[in-house]
């Protein structure tokens, strides 16, 4: 379609001059659509470059492209820009340009997509250059006005100094002139060892509004004349809308319209959301149930089980000859594991407000990738990209749910088109949110390993069977049918996630089996089950070899010093070499993913068949630590999310639909189950890795290994609550 291709060309690679666009040019050439209420998109103050705006009162506005959703990216990115800008941190605020503005300016702010723990690691270079370039232009402006060489000028917290003549001026005074200066060609960034703003555990910039109710989330957005919509989509995967009868609600107060949406759902538009939702329950709807109306979890499990021994599989990592290695082994060990579907369960259910006028379509929503949301608006509205935009509002959680699929945005536009010139806010009920997730994919895994007489692992076959996320969300990105992300953390090389163990004969392969549920990225993604399968099995092998799980791993990680370093750090802090307190059992795990190295030691107790996780010691080497206290918060949070899945999380299917429709049947970790978490943040300074996800990988396997140490029994199917005789304390 034309609209899509227009958008794609507008969303081309950032121009070389990316961060160097000047005020005069920008203000002359582009109109920023200031009709948007509540959100000031771009201040009319001098824009030194795309990243930095400085007002005459010395306040500094730093533009943030990647999305804040709780993980602290906004503060971290601002720290990086401010570090190079050398401004006064206490005067920094932020703003988020819209994806429409990004498209209109040749994608000057780069990629908005925020997932895969990429918020900082994939944009630190150009945002730091943006800050440095703005500083150099401000200094050049001062030097010009004083008629001195720039090399004689220095900066101290937004004050420009010419020492020889004892003259001083400020960024606020120089901003307008700076905006007209030629952007520098050669930019030398600071050595992180000299950082004074980045690298420090500064408070977040977005905390205050989150403690007094004033933070506006997408759910809270409002505008004059806005109506509210509730929706129900066919709950059976692959089903559609056949017909509906809304005659019962025709005379109910507040009801404005009842509409079909996308051939799959029915929405009621009313004055208030409660009116819409309660009326919707009385609309009689007939569904076309489609081909999956009888589907159950048992059917899916059987499909995956077949894949465990199937002949055909995509290879992810291969060394030596695993068949020969296994045949020659003194001892072989085999185990089969499984990991179920998970729901994101963001605290804020999906929602979006849309206003369609026939010639324009604007959406206000929470998204991890508002450029993709804009693409959805363009497609759904049928309008060119220049006549659409998405205003970014705070997310009540993302975790991957708001990263790729903007189904809620599409529906909001399709509803608004049936109510032109009136803003309509669509809110999914929690039940709708649970029934229409993009679930963490389901997999099973069969592991077979051979040990020699000394207990060395000489061969291992790891066969994963199950769902590919790419096949569900973007099949065009499959590589000859293969989904590379299936092998996260198991790769032979690269910067993302390398398999750390030295095993001479190795085969890791994937039999792709795709049930009809939509799969999506879920915090940690395929690293979660890959780490669980591998790290639990490594513990099983240590037991089979009669060796200590730490020593066993250390020996096999001899060629992977960074994997080994985080493992050793947690072992030391946890006191692995000393006996655990009475009744406490320990388990280890390590993994590499999203560019970072992580390890954990869990301490659990089991009393009266009740398992309690008391303490986690976790280490991460993310290369660089931009805000250490926020990394600690991410480590805490990743354990909460990972342990929630391990202990309780399971989406099951009956009659082609999800059985768990709210938090009474989809239990989540609460305060009483949260272990104490001791973090070790140990950046080695020679690479940039992620921090939002990586420690989640080691949460479940460390706890499972501790449980096995306590009971002598292995739990191989998740979650613990429904697959073992243990209760959760």
């Amino acid at each position, binding site marked *: 379609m034309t609209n899509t291709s227009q958008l794609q060309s507008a969303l081309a690679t950032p121009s070389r001059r990316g961060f160097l666009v000047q005020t005069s040019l920008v203000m002359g050439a582009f109109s920023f659509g200031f009709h948007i209420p509540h959100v000031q998109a771009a201040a009319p103050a001098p824009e030194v470059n795309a990243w930095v705006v400085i007002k005459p009162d010395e306040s500094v506005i730093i533009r943030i492209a990647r999305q804040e*959703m*709780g*993980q*602290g990216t906004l503060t971290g990115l601002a720290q990086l820009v401010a570090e190079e800008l050398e401004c006064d941190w206490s005067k920094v605020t932020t703003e988020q340009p819209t994806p429409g503005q990004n498209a209109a300016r040749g994608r000057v702010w780069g990629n908005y997509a925020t997932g895969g723990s990429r918020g900082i690691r994939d944009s630190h270079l150009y945002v730091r250059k943006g800050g440095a370039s703005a500083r150099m232009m401000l200094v050049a402006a001062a030097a010009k006005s004083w008629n001195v060489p720039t090399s004689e000028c220095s900066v101290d917290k937004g004050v420009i100094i010419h020492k020889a003549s004892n003259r001083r001026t400020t960024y606020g005074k120089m901003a307008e002139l700076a905006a007209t200066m030629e952007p520098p060609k050669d930019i030398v960034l600071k050595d992180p060892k000299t950082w004074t703003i980045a690298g420090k555990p500064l*408070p*977040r910039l*977005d*905390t*205050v*509004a*989150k*403690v*007094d*109710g*004033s*933070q*506006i*989330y997408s*759910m*809270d957005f*409002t505008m004059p004349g806005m109506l509210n919509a509730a929706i129900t989509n066919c709950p059976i995967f692959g089903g559609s809308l056949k017909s509906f009868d809304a005659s019962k609600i025709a005379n109910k*107060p507040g009801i404005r319209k009842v509409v079909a949406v996308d051939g799959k759902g029915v929405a009621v538009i009313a004055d*208030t*959301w*409660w009116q819409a939702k*309660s009326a919707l329950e009385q609309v009689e709807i007939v569904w076309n149930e489609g081909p999956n109306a009888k589907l159950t979890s048992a059917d899916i499990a059987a499909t995956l089980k077949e894949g465990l021994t199937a002949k055909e599989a995509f290879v992810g990592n291969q060394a030596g000859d695993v068949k020969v290695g296994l045949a020659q082994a003194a001892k072989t060990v085999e185990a089969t594991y499984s990991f179920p579907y998970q729901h994101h*369960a*963001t*605290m*804020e*259910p999906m929602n979006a407000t849309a206003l369609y006028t026939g010639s324009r379509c604007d959406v206000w929503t929470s998204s991890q990738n508002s450029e993709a949301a804009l693409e959805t608006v363009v497609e759904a509205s049928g309008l060119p990209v220049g006549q659409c935009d998405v205003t970014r509002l*705070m*997310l*009540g*959680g*993302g*975790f991957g749910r708001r990263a790729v699929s903007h189904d809620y945005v599409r529906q909001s536009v399709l509803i608004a088109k049936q109510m032109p010139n009136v803003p309509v806010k669509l*809110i999914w*009920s*929690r*039940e709708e949110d649970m029934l229409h997730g993009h679930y963490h994919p389901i997999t099973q895994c069969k592991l077979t390993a051979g040990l020699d007489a000394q207990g060395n692992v000489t061969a291992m076959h790891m066969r994963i069977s199950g769902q590919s996320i790419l096949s569900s969300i973007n099949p065009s990105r499959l590589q000859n049918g293969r989904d590379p992300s299936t092998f996260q953390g198991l790769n032979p090389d690269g910067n993302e996630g390398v398999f750390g163990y030295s095993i001479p004969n190795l085969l890791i392969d994937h039999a792709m089996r795709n049930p009809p549920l939509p799969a999506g990225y879920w915090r940690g993604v395929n690293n979660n089950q890959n780490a669980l399968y591998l790290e639990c099995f490594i513990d099983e092998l240590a037991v089979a070899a009669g060796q200590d799980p730490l020593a066993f791993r250390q020996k096999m990680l001899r060629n992977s010093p960074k994997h080994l370093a985080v493992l050793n750090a947690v072992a030391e802090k946890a006191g692995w070499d000393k006996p655990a307190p009475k009744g406490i059992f320990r388990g280890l795990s390590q993994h590499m993913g999203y560019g970072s190295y992580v390890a954990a030691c869990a301490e659990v107790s089991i009393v009266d068949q009740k398992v309690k996780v008391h303490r986690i010691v976790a280490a991460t080497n993310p290369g660089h630590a931009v805000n250490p*206290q*926020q990394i600690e*918060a991410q480590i*805490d*949070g*990743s*354990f*909460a*999310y990972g342990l929630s899945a391990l202990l309780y999380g399971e989406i099951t299917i009956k009659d082609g639909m999800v059985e768990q429709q*709210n*938090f*009474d049947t989809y239990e*989540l*970790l*609460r*305060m*009483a189950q*949260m272990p*104490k978490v001791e973090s070790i943040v140990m950046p080695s300074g020679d690479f940039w890795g992620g921090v939002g996800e990586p420690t989640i990988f080691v949460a479940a396997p460390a706890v499972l290994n501790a449980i096995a140490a306590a009971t002598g029994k292995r739990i191989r199917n998740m979650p613990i609550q429904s697959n073992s005789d243990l209760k959760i304390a």
Partner: protein
Amino acid sequence: MAQLVINGIKQTVSADPDTPILWVLRDLGLTGTKYGCGVAQCGACTVHIDGEPVRSCSLPLSALQDGQSIITIEALGAGGKLHALQKAWIELDVPQCGYCQSGQLMAASALLSKSPNPTDAEIDEAMTNICRCGTYNRIRAGIKHAAALLTKKA
């Protein structure tokens, strides 16, 4: 029509009697109180009614009597000043996405009013609100820090 005292101000509410208090409040513009589950599970909608923490998503307007008092997050701090818990939350950078924190703060303030120096067990029992970002350890530390701030003042 119901007459309620919301954050100290008398208000006449004309919503249907079956409307949950959560939506009554949000439709009045008090959007700090959040919708999370609608079935009293997650606690994002916690407000105080006559001083007691209540999950407002599951309490219909018809259950309240004229003159009953509702306090929401917007009025947690008295006289425009921050509550000790809010100060502690800021000092310890408790929120991540922050969506659940209004409810967490309302549950925590109800706890502190009953038990000025709560034990870990009391915190576990009172703080059953869900946080998907996993801020529980900082919430616990925040409650203890606020308790210390309040004790110092007293």
